[in-house]
């Protein structure tokens, strides 16, 4: 090039200087706007997801101190958002315990008390309505759930020529739902309960598609529960009020059962159709059923190996 150096350099030309300034300015503006666009979801987060929860580690990698801090902040958030004083615990699996559930279909009469007890115990959102247990009305003599009716409405149950099949999370030994989770937000605990870290779930709903029992539910919006209906005994992995945008499910009431109690659905069953216990204890009721009754599991061909057993009785 023949351009003389020093006299016509870009720094000396006021036109060029203005152009480069404008370019840089527009570039910066665009970058800022795109940053704002990308972080928009952060700023419009529902109040159910705090920045603490957003930046926290996976449940399995939490130090005890960090976990205590998180439990405290969840309690504070519920107090702020719902006006209820609650305690959020973190019950650990017990050694030598594997939970199992059995349901006597000859006894169940479809009264749906278990459904409502579950809703109240587990702080499920009342609006939009959410229920973990689905009581299917089945035609007598058939095991075909395609012929069932979930929305039966009778003055009195049991109806003629019907029996009732309550379905909830089967706590599979080979769960398809945990395998499809892209972020490992759901896993099976040593006592057999498949749990969800609600602070880690990204709400992709792959697990809902994978579950053959339709046991998982999605929080479409902020949970609506009246303060007086909130169950203050909460667990991090079970019945604390879930934020919007995450999946939840039955955990056999692990905040109760890990303290030795029965699950809520069993406590209220007026027909005594439900039996719960430790399958590893040879003297437990659930073990008696597995040894002495002809139990069956739902969708055996799916290979999920549930820990939930059904049986008929004379």
């Amino acid at each position, binding site marked *: 090039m023949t351009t003389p150096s020093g006299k016509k350099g870009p720094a000396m030309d006021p036109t060029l200087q203005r152009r480069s300034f404008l370019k840089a300015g527009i570039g910066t503006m665009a970058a800022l706007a795109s940053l704002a666009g*990308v*972080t928009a*979801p952060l700023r*419009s*987060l529902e109040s159910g*997801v705090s920045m603490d929860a*957003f*930046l926290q*580690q*996976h449940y399995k990698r939490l130090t005890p101190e960090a976990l205590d801090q998180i439990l405290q902040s969840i309690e504070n958030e519920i107090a702020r958002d719902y006006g209820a004083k609650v305690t959020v615990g973190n019950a650990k699996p017990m050694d030598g315990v594997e939970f199992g559930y059995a349901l006597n279909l000859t006894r169940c*009469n*479809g*009264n*749906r008390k278990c459904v*409502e*007890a579950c809703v*109240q115990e587990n702080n499920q959102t*009342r*609006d*939009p*309505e*959410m*229920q973990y247990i*689905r009581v299917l009305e089945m035609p007598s003599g058939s095991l075909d759930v395609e012929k069932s009716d*979930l*929305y*039966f*409405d009778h*003055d*009195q*149950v049991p109806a003629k020529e019907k029996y009732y099949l309550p379905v909830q999370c089967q706590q599979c030994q080979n769960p398809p739902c945990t395998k499809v989770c*892209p*972020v490992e937000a759901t896993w099976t605990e040593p006592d057999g309960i498949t749990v969800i870290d609600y602070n*880690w779930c*990204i*709400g992709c709903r792959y697990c809902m598609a994978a579950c053959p029992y*339709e046991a998982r*539910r*999605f929080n*479409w*919006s902020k949970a609506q529960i009246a303060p007086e209906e909130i169950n203050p005994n909460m667990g991090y992995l079970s019945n604390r009020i879930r934020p919007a*945008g995450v999946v939840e499910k039955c955990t056999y009431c692990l905040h109760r059962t890990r*303290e*030795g*109690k*029965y699950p809520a659905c*069993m*406590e*209220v069953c007026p*027909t*005594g159709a*439900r039996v*719960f*216990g*430790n399958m590893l204890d040879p003297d*437990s*009721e659930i073990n008696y*059923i597995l040894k*002495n009754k002809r139990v069956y599991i739902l969708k055996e061909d799916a290979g999920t190996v549930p820990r939930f057993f059904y049986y008929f009785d*004379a």
Partner: protein
Amino acid sequence: MHIRACANWSVALAISTCHLACAPAPEAANPSTLVVRVVENNVFDTTPVRGEFHPLNYKKAGFTYRCTECHFSIQPPPRQNPLQSEHANIVFDHGLNINCLNCHHPTNRDAYVDHEGNEIPPSQPARLCSKCHGPTYRDWEAGIHGRQNGYWDTSKGARTKLFCVQCHDPHSPKFKPMKPLPAPQRTRFSALLPDHPEGPRP
């Protein structure tokens, strides 16, 4: 650390896509479609359907009588249909078991009777039922017939067990039909059910 950052960004993206995905289901935010919950509020009441267990006696006008207060001398026929006098309100529907004295002791009316003619104290009604309902009694003993409440882990707390008569009327033992709680009003995908009865199945 890097993985964690990725996961956090995927949270942000998922939430933003969730907002888009939520758009077709706005009923939740629309107060005009709020679901009114019609549910009894005593759902956690664990009282059995026939109430607390009480021993064999007779109540009238606020007084409680032992059966032998009348039956010290009266010897009724082994069966009487329809039931009369103080027993007229008993609905009797116990299958082939139609004789009063199959269960009630012929001479001591404050007790039940076993197969040998010996007395069964009224505090142990399950022994009486086991005369005919052996398999059910065996299951009840094992703790799988009839509801249990309390603690599955008895090292942490007590477990309560119901007697037969707390769920079954001994004179008409078939478990009575009951009114179910309301049906769900939404599918599991949270969509409201349309009014027509052939609405979407789950």
